[in-house]
């Protein structure tokens, strides 16, 4: 069984190579960065309904598993098996579950801090859609444990600029761990 080599997840995210790079500080760059910062804020503060408002109706959120290979074999991502493979319906159910009294995995909730940075923004073949590659460093404090659970990844997003504001249209989470150090992913990445 051969791993799928996603050398850069960008083509997989949009089925074509990224277009023109948008420089740091450009207006559209600032808007995209602002969107990601705002998204992290909503999730960290448990504003899940508001977060759902940022998702396009056709949003797809995936996260392939990753294995540890020698360098010449690529980065170890495998498209066959995933940590996440959620569409809007699944994300909506999971987010709305957080408001019920039976979401035990996150109730009491973890204290989570999502640090989003290193945004590289590119145009795509679709007008108004941008490939946004950002780094995510997530700290999760659970119960009375004094150690944080941490998670880090690159996220390759397709952000769509619409009349109703920016929307997340696609997200591929490119995790840095082969063996995940989180007991569950009952949070949104």
């Amino acid at each position: 069984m051969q791993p799928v080599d996603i050398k850069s997840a960008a083509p997989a995210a949009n089925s074509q190579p990224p277009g023109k790079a948008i420089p740091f500080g450009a207006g559209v760059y600032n808007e995209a960065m602002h969107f990601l910062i705002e998204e992290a804020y909503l999730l960290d503060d448990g504003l899940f309904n508001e977060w759902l408002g940022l998702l396009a109706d056709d949003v797809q959120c995936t996260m392939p598993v990753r294995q540890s290979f020698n360098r010449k074999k690529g980065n170890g991502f495998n498209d066959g098996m995933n940590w996440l493979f959620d569409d809007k319906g699944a994300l909506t159910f999971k987010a709305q579950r957080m408001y019920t009294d039976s979401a035990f995995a996150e109730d009491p909730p973890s204290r989570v801090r999502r640090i989003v940075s290193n945004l590289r923004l590119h145009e795509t073949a679709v007008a108004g859609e941008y490939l946004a590659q950002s780094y995510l460093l997530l700290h999760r404090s659970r119960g009375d444990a004094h150690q944080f659970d941490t998670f880090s990844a690159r996220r390759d997003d397709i952000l769509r600029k619409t009349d109703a504001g920016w929307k997340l249209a696609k997200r591929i989470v490119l995790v840095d761990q082969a063996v995940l150090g989180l007991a569950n992913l009952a949070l949104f990445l």
Partner: protein
Amino acid sequence: MTNENDLKRGRTALVDGTSISSLVDRDKREVSTRLFSDPEIYQLELERIFAKNWIIVGHESEISEVGDFVTRRLGDDPVIVARRRDGGIDCMLNVCSHRGALVCREEAGNSSVFRCIYHGWIFNLDGSFRGAPFKEEMYPDGMDASRLGLRKARVGVYGGIIFANWDESAPSLEDYLGDYKYYLNLIFNKVPNGMEVLGPPQRFVINANWKTASEQFGGDAYHAGQLHRSLGALTGGSPTNPRDWQLHAPKVSTENGHNIICFDLGDMYRAISGGKELSPIEKLHILPPSGVPPEMLPEMLQLLGEKELEFLATTPPGNGGIFPNAGVWNMHNPMYNGVPAPFLSFRTYLPLGPDKFEFCMWVLVAKGASEEYRDLMRRSTSFMQGASGFIEGDDAEVWPGQTSASRGYIGRQGTLKYWTLTGEHKPEGWPGEGNVHAGFSRDDPQWNWWQRYFDRLEEKV
């Protein structure tokens, strides 16, 4: 050199004088909570459970070509599982016979030999010693290759699942699985070409003892209506109706500690058909068993006998545990839109010390299943199973609590209760083997799991 195993054999007490047999009360059916965090018990488990039973290390389809390998753990020992030239499978200790370095550091790949990076000793695909650099100069008196191969475990494959066992005197895998094979066949051998994995397993670490998850998969149907109450939003299940949580579904326990819950699909089919009685074949067409895409259903109908098809259409084997540390999950559950989706996985709970384990989950489909069907399986898995599944996320919240609570001086004096049994009732015409517990679902299979566990820990078998 004394063999460490010889020293340990026959040991019946822990260093503080507590006898191992006192950790279980076989009359009252209670088990000491101390088992969930005691480091000494953990060491005994590695010796008496993980080195003596058939332990799952992977799936055949992960290493389908000659030279394919994966690195895994067997107990807490690193192993290489590789496909030999003759098509057979080997499982060998991933530790160099020279000075103990890790021989293979990749998680998977294809190779014709394994070369240790430290001094360069080379081993064949089957683990036998092949050579060393500067052999003549370094070892002028020669090398006894027969003593230098990687240590090998026995390997057995059932339903495509690869098991390994360090114990030369243990019964065969077929005997170990025994009556359980009937149910495994209906999960993993239901199509002529068998199943394959979607890809490498999900692997994640939970700060809990491996037994918290393993004994739950030993047949704990009781927790679903409470811990997994979220499911009710999709199934319409009411917290007060035991049928909604399959607590009336027959459970089966077999010798050696395996078990399976056979879910009753009656209510579901009645809801689909509006009360009209359906034939088994009609039912299977409406909802082909998990892993079998609709277009491959005819292959299954041709392969299986009438009795088996009827069984799959009424009370198919669903959720169960393979002793000591594995589980299978084979069922349908409604997705967020109410449409039932298939789930098919097996998982192992790998010990990483008394208070930590790795959850390792493989997802399967029939060999040759369409990409569309694979996507459906990816979707349903992400929604409900494994790290991101909203069902198993809640389980992962309970196990660490059980573990840390058993560390306290007082907490470890408590017991786990398995008081209540359904008893053995085999419904008429039940086609399978084993002890069938039809009736309200109680503690029978989990108690069976613990009895086998203690038989092993006390070296009764």
